[in-house]
Structure formats: structure tokens, C-alpha cells
């Protein structure tokens, strides 16, 4: 089974991350006692609720923000206290409100990156998975590996060199790099699921390739791809953070988390919170997303 799931070359993101295969996990889960299953489902729901809360905060940051993120309404470098939960930065802006407003930029650019990666990766993966070994599969395989060969940060930097800095460009660049993983994964599951009996049956009944994909294969590959998406969402957040830390994402007055961390690093010696707290926020969101990815993978 793993043989069909693995790409031709034994090295691959899909192979490394989901190597043992969703089917193997499903077989292992079949014998799970109902009480444990219920507990795990509850855990998923709690995590999804947390994520929903984050999305609400991202859309309406003023709901929880206590100050204006750009207003200078405090003494510079006040340490965290009752009025300024996370303290203030070098010119007296409220760090808590800035972090809350920064969530919007981070979540939205990560969403853009993941959507680009998902769409591009699925198209490439399905095209190459339909007829494994065909010339199209080979060309797309070499192309995928060529993109993988360039480290994600460098690829994004190359795109930024051409199209200029900005959160939008950075997100699309990150999505481009992440598309390779999706392409590998989707190719693997498409090849695997086209060996299922019901897919062969559908073909025998005269279903064309498009119908076979949309009605029979996609519902089956949905789950592993969903879990992988959650994982890549976290990685996209980290990558976008790194890019804006390097100075290629949002420009400084913006409360994007990478920008906040880069700005705070200069004052690390006497005001640790300016750089450390936005990083904690970023870590918390990524941990949440990774946990969701893990739970979804287990759930299948």
C-alpha cells in the first residue's frame, strides 16, 4: 500500500509527513473504543472553537482591543500591567492592541498563501496523478522538484525581488513554495484511490475522468488534504512572519507580528516584552493549527 502512496522517488514531503498513509491510520482506528473516540471528537471541537474565536477577532479586532494600535497613549516602555496588558513599545503604543490588530494581517495573508498552494497543488497533483508515468506526469514532477529544490524563504525573496515588498506578494510567494507539498500529496492519494474497487466500477459504468474525480476521488482524498492544509497553514504563518521580520512583508508602522518582533529586537536589553510577546502570540496560533492538523489526521 505504501508503495502506491509514495511518489516514484522515495524522497518527498508527502512521503515524509503522511508516510504511513491515511488508510493505515483508518484501519488502526477501526478498533478504537467509543469512549476514547468521543473524547477525541470533543477535543477537536474545542480546538475548532478556539480557531473560530481567532477568526472573529481577526475580522473585528476592535471587539477585544483596548487602545488604538497607532495612537501614542502611554509612557514608552511601560512593562505589562493592568491598563497595558502587554506593556507599551518604544513610542508608547499599546502592545496588546497592536498584537490583536496584527492577527488580522497574519491570518489573512496565511489564508491567501494556503489557498494559492491548495489550488495550484491540487491542479498539478490531479493532472499528474491521473496517468502516473505519462510525459505530463514527468514534466510536472521535474517542475515540482525544481521548486522544492529552492528553499521556501529564497523562493519568496526571489518573487519579492521582482514584484516588490508587501504582505500580498509575500503571501503569494509562500503559497507558490507550499504548492509543491500539496502537489505531491494529491498525486499520491489520487493514484492510490484510483486503485479502489468503486472507482474502477465507476469507470466500468462509463464515468469519464472528470466525473470520476469529482464524484468518487475528491470525497476520498478530502480528509488527508484537509489535515495537511491545517499543517501548511501554520507553516505559512511562520514563513510570512520570517519574511516580514527580514523586512520584506508589511512596512514598519504596521502591527504585523514579524514587524513587531523585528522592531522590538533593538530594545531587547531593557524591554523584553516588545519582541517576546508578539512571538508568543505567533507560537500560540501555530501550535493551535498544528494540533488541529494532528487531530484531523487521527480522526480519519
Amino acid at each position: 500500500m505504501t508503495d502506491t502512496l509514495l511518489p516514484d522517488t522515495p524522497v518527498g514531503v508527502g512521503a515524509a509527513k503522511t508516510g504511513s498513509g491515511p488508510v493505515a491510520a483508518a484501519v488502526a482506528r477501526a478498533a478504537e473504543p467509543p469512549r476514547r473516540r468521543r473524547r477525541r471528537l470533543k477535543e477537536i471541537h474545542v480546538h475548532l472553537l478556539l480557531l473560530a474565536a481567532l477568526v472573529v477577532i481577526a475580522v473585528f479586532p476592535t471587539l477585544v482591543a483596548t487602545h488604538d494600535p497607532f495612537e501614542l497613549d502611554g509612557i514608552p516602555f511601560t512593562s505589562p500591567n493592568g491598563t497595558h496588558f502587554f506593556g507599551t513599545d518604544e513610542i508608547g503604543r499599546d502592545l496588546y492592541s497592536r498584537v490583536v490588530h496584527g492577527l488580522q494581517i497574519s491570518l489573512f495573508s496565511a489564508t491567501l498563501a494556503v489557498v494559492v498552494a491548495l489550488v495550484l497543488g491540487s491542479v498539478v497533483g490531479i493532472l499528474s496523478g491521473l496517468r502516473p508515468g505519462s510525459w505530463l506526469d514527468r514534466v510536472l514532477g521535474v517542475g515540482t522538484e525544481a521548486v522544492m529544490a529552492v528553499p521556501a524563504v529564497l523562493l519568496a525573496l526571489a518573487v519579492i525581488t521582482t514584484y516588490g515588498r508587501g504582505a500580498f506578494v509575500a503571501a503569494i510567494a509562500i503559497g507558490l513554495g507550499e504548492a509543491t507539498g500539496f502537489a505531491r500529496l494529491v498525486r499520491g492519494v489520487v493514484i492510490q484511490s484510483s486503485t479502489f474497487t468503486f472507482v474502477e466500477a465507476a469507470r466500468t459504468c462509463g464515468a469519464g475522468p472528470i466525473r470520476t474525480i469529482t464524484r468518487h476521488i475528491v470525497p476520498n482524498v478530502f480528509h488527508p488534504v484537509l489535515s495537511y492544509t491545517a499543517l501548511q497553514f501554520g507553516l505559512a504563518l511562520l514563513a510570512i512572519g520570517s519574511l516580514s521580520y527580514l523586512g520584506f512583508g508589511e512596512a514598519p508602522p504596521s502591527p504585523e507580528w514579524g514587524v513587531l518582533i523585528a522592531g522590538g529586537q533593538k530594545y531587547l536589553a531593557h524591554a523584553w516584552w516588545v519582541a517576546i510577546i508578539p512571538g508568543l502570540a505567533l507560537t500560540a496560533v501555530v501550535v493551535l493549527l498544528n494540533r488541529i492538523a494532528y487531530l484531523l489526521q487521527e480522526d480519519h
Partner: protein
Amino acid sequence: MTTTTDTTEPTPLETPATPRSTVVRDVSRVVAGRLVHAALVIYAAYSASFFLLFVLPGDAVLARIGTTDTVGVADISDLDLDVLRDEVGLSDSLWTQYWNGIAGLFRGDLGSSLVNDRAVTDLLAEALPNTLALAGLSLLLSVPLGFLLALLAVNPRSRLVRSFAALVPSAYVSLPVFWIGILFIYLFSITLGWFPSGGSQSASALVLPVAVLALLGAAQFAQVLISSLRTELGTTYASVTAPAKGASRFYTLWHHCLRNAAFPFLAVFGLRVGQLLGGTVVIEVVFSRTGIGRLMVDSVKAVDLTVVLGLVVVLAIVYVVVNMLVDIGYSLLDPRLRRRASTTQEVTS
């Protein structure tokens, strides 16, 4: 290749013993296949990044005069810009530039910087030693550390210890690399004063960046090793046969399971090299070290297309070569892959 005499005795097993000459032939076939593939991948990476970088809406020649917009160039007439373009070869047609670049790649010549005319290979040679020291040391440390973490997460009898040790690597990979760097600077440099917070002169400045990257690599290796070791421990040979003959849990892990668990580890090792090179870019900026990362950031800021292209191509070559070696290592270790590779080649050729 030396000719080998067939010394293997006929075995009573059904499968015929593979003579060494076949092994050599199979492996060299794998090597040849991988070489062609690697060359194709590098060519594709070069072409893609060339067209990405050079078919651009802006004007690359502006990098030459140290600006990226037209605000400061009002006093320079179009004629001067054309002369400049001629000078750096940007006025040739795109295809001429492309073919010149490919030809240069074969000669080991990556062109020269648009900003200061220095050869890209010289710039790289200057930046590489620092980066290689950082990346190499952290990779070297992360392998034993990863194995140690994985054994800690699988071997102890206490369930609490095991689940805690399994949690550490998955938590660490969720942390932003640049933020860990800053955290380490705050803890070990500002608060405790043990190591310098940056720079690339002294050896002690290497400690913190190496620690950040080595831990990250170790965490990734441990994650893969833990899941494959758990699978191995569930198999019959480890859960029934080994205890039945009196082997301890650690003996079973060390002598039986680790070897089987090493295959997914190899795959991740190849991928890790690529990520490590990306990670060093960020870490070098955090710790203000000189190296590939600094060169990359500076040339992106200056829109120095040739240097960016050169860096992308060199790092792609490193990645491809490492992964090719990993693949060949696979086929040396696992005869099944070797045979499959040779049969697929026969089918296609």
C-alpha cells in the same frame, strides 16, 4: 568498476542470491537515472528563476545607480541608461541573456553583480565558509540529538516521561525560528551573559545560532523517528519475538528497530538540508552574521538580479545533490528499491 567474481553460494531459498555484479549494475543504473533527473531539475530551477527574475515590470539597470525607483534619476538622461544597459548586458534580447546564462552555468560562471560588478562566484566564495560552518555544525549535532530525543520518547517505562519527550519536538517545530533566536539572545546573552549576541568573528558567537538550528533539526528528525519507531515496536518481531528470546526493550530498540526506522529518517534528512539553508538565511540576520543569508537579503533589497539568481541556483544544486546521494543511499540499503528502479527503467526505455 572492478570486475567481481561470483562467490555467492547457491542458497536453498527460492529467491536466487543476487551476485555482486548485478548489485553493481543495478546501483549504477540508479545512479545514472538520478544524474539525468538531477540535471533536469537544476535546469528547470535555473530557467524558472531566470524568467521569474528577468521578465520584470521594473528596470534592473536602476540597481546599478543604487535606486529602485525613478525619483532620483531625473538628471540622468535616457542615453546614459542605455549605455549602462549595454555595459551590463541588459540590452540584449531576453533569449540571448538566457542562453549566455546557461552557457555560463556550464563554465561555472554566474555572471557579475549588477551593483558593483564583482563576480557572483567571488561573492559566494566569500559568504559560503561562514554559512557552511553554521549549517554543517548544526546538522552534525542535530542527528545524534534527534536520535536521543526519539529514544527518550519511546524507551522509558513511564508513560508520562514518554509522552512528555514526544511533546518536546512537536512543540519546538511550531516556534518561529527568528523568535527562538531572539529568545536565546535574551536568555543566554543579555540575562546570563554567557555568549555574545551576534557577530561572526569569534567561535563563541557560533554557539547560539548553531544551538537554534541544531535543536530545530533534532526536533524534526525526532518527530519522524518517534512515529517510525512506534510502528516498529508494534510489529511481531519487536513485540513478541524479541521479548520471547529475553531481549530487553532497549536492546530490541537499539539492535532491531533503529535500522528499520532509519529509512523515513533518511528521507527527512535530505529535505532538512534544503530547509536548513533557508533557516540559516533568517538566523544569520537575527545574529547579524555575515554569510549567504546576509548576501541574499542585501541583494534582494538592492534588486541585484544576477546575485539573487546565482544564489538560487547554487542552493538548488546543493539540495539536488544531497537528495541524489540520499536516493542512492536508499538503493544501496534496500534491494527492493534497486530492483524496482531498474525494472521501471527497462519498461520506459
